């Protein structure tokens, strides 16, 4: 018996360790270092094109219902300028004073801005289960706190009602079974189902940019056309709008005394006449002939609306920008903890040069795998040339040789392979 207990305990400890390690590995956020890499554009624009004019007069705004055209064009100009490949400005028109077509080739961006939004209101129905007793209250309170679930109270003893069926209420079911097994039927509280209605409001915003990139000079040529869009959607359910409209105990109370006398369970009981839940039928029609309104201040606070639109515009412009201009991208890579140099924290703080110096001060034969990897990361994060990437690759391979089977080090090698392939294209696009 004792032996068996020891075996059982060992198993449990083993199982606990596995579960704990799985949970820990899933929950612990890795130590990440962020750095910027430059990536090539999808098409290579001729090098002589350095000036770009965004022609506001040639950007159609007929379907710009949110009135964001100016914001879109300015954001496009700002982002393109930040990448440094072009000098971009938004202009109302273009004439001979802004450039000399005999001497230089410039590009113009024209197109269309489409935007819109909707506020969709309505009423929905759901079924809920109302439970009483301590367990009902505890599970309801817990659920409400954790899942932001809507709770209503029925008129009968103030039982709490939550979305779902009898079978779905696991906590109550387990307690009922336990009480039943213990012969404590009196302790099991009654429960009933209820039809509820509630109001909701859906808010959506949409932005699309259709742009073309045209080179002009001695000749005119369209080099790129793209259409990209982005959308935002939010559902707001007003918890105070939940109302119980038909509770089954109201009917069962009437029939309960009859059934107790006959002691014959009847299932199911058709009760159409008195059960017509007419309140669940919304009288109001939510789609009018004019369609849906655009979200206003009461639907989305101005500050938040501005932020959302900024995100939408950024997303809608992203692919067009990446088509015509080399761009910078933030990359996250995990930092190796430990090693002789203990340079992990420096990398996380973005001090790549300092990390590089500290690691390089350690003789190569004394460097541990973490040092090699972090050195690779320092080179990768501060890369200015193909040689830096090649060095980073070499250091990652050294780390892998020192500590075979480490996924982190292999990921470094894989990343550099991709960058080196892109670097050749990038060099063609950015060489002066």
């Amino acid at each position, binding site marked *: 018996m004792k032996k068996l207990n020891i075996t059982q305990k060992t198993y449990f400890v083993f199982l606990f360790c596995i579960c704990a390690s799985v949970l820990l590995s899933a929950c612990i956020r890795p130590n990440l270092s962020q750095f910027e890499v430059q990536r090539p554009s999808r098409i290579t624009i001729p090098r002589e094109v350095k000036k770009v004019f965004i022609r506001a007069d040639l950007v159609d705004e007929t379907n710009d219902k949110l009135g964001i055209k100016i914001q879109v064009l300015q954001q496009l100009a700002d982002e393109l300028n930040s990448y440094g490949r072009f000098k971009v400005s938004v202009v109302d028109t273009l004439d001979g004073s802004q450039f000399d077509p005999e001497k230089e080739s410039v590009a113009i961006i024209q197109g269309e801005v489409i935007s819109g939004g909707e506020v969709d209101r309505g009423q929905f129905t759901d079924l809920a289960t109302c439970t009483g007793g301590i367990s009902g209250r505890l599970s309801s309170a817990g659920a409400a706190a954790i899942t932001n679930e809507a709770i209503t109270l029925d008129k009968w003893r103030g039982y709490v009602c939550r979305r779902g069926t*009898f079978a779905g209420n696991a906590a109550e079911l387990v307690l009922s079974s336990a009480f039943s097994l213990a012969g404590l039927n009196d302790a099991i509280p009654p429960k009933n189902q209820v039809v509820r209605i509630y109001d909701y409001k859906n808010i959506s915003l949409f932005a699309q940019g259709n742009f073309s990139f045209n080179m002009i000079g001695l000749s005119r040529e369209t080099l790129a056309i793209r259409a990209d869009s982005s959308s935002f959607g939010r559902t707001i359910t007003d918890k105070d709008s939940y109302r119980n409209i038909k509770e089954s105990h109201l009917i069962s109370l009437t029939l309960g005394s009859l059934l107790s006398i006959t002691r014959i369970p009847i299932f199911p009981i058709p009760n159409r006449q008195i059960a017509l839940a007419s309140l669940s039928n919304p009288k109001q029609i939510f789609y009018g002939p004019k369609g849906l309104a655009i979200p206003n201040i009461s639907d989305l606070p101005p500050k938040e609306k501005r932020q959302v639109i900024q995100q939408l515009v950024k997303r809608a412009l*992203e692919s067009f920008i990446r088509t015509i201009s080399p761009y910078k991208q933030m990359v996250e890579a995990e930092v190796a903890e430990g090693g002789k140099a203990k340079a992990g924290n420096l990398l996380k703080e973005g001090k790549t040069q300092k990390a590089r110096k500290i690691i390089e001060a350690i003789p190569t034969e004394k460097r541990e795998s973490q040092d090699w990897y972090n050195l690779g990361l320092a080179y990768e994060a501060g890369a200015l040339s193909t040689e830096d990437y090649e060095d980073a690759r070499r250091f990652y391979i050294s780390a892998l040789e020192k500590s075979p089977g480490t996924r982190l080090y292999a990921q470094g090698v894989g990343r550099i392979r991709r960058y080196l392939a892109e670097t050749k294209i990038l060099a063609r696009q950015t060489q002066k």
Partner: protein
Amino acid sequence: MKLFNNYILNKLFLMLLISAFLISGCAKATLTIRSPAEINTRKIKNVAVGGFEIGQMMLKFKTERNGVWQTHPVLLSEEQQKSISRSVRARVINLLTATPYFKVIFSDEFEKLANDAALQQLVSVRGYKTKNVDAVINGKLWLEIERTDGVDLSKEGLEYFRPPRSRNSIGLNLTVDQVVWWPYKSTRGTLGLEIKMTRLLPTEVVATTFETRTYSQRIGGRNGESFQQIADSFTSVLSTSDTSKIDSIESSADVLPSFEQIIADMALSIASGFVRRVAVTEKVVSYPIAEGSFPNAKILIEAGAYDVAIDQLQQATAENSDPNDLYNLGLCFEAIGDYGLAHTTYREAWKTDPENLLFAQGLGRIERLRRENPQLQRQLESR
């Protein structure tokens, strides 16, 4: 009881081991492979995109209460219709420019033509001025989108349970029929898109396709109501954007998409099918990695570090030719497009263990690619 406990514990342990094995065994290599065009477009390098004519466009709101339906059509101005047509055209261009196969020539000359008849006439008399264009792609679209605000009616059994109060009592467990109204909102859109590719010299319609896509989504209503959306398989064929997850924009599955978004998704889906027919396309696939004896191979392949994996696997297999390492080496050759070496290496692995399905699959893949390859090579060499 003791035996029972032991049995349960052993079962649990076994299940954990199997789960751990499955988790560790699901490593896959992600490869980008090229597929040849379905129809012969070898001599077509430069493609212009003409206009997309509007066949019919209907947008409407439908409402229903107590069986009475009302429809409110949304009238679109000519400019709005043109804008939708331009958006569909631009989505087709998005995909065409994502393939390495065609050079898209952007010319207003073909876009301005009123319809296909005008294009065919211009092409037949060679009246176009744009130079260096081998073919023109144009299209026609039919669109119908409706939003519904309706109410379903169903009979629901509301349950009531009361435990017995004493040993002589039977308690209550009733189901009471209730008629319940379930309001819902839905959107449904159908896009019919005809896309045609016309070669200029000799004048010939090389490819034409007419496809429809339907999108429908429903919110509210009785729980468990199904809704369908268009298949998004096209995104795996031509991934056009690697949007960063950091700047994710809030979205909700309970919000019906805007008309513009539905049109964009459906147009992209149809266009991807057309592009697959006429152009060499790239697609991203995942293949399993074998559990070889060389510890770094699996993680290097997973990370996409194929060159280093090849170096190290070649050394490892020269000393000890484990068939799993050979398979992984073949996978690396396949990933970098060296199908000849991939075939030889897979074959070597398969010869050592002919029963191994993984090795046979590798071999089969390469043979299929090699069958397609002459066509692919011819298509790529003609660029």
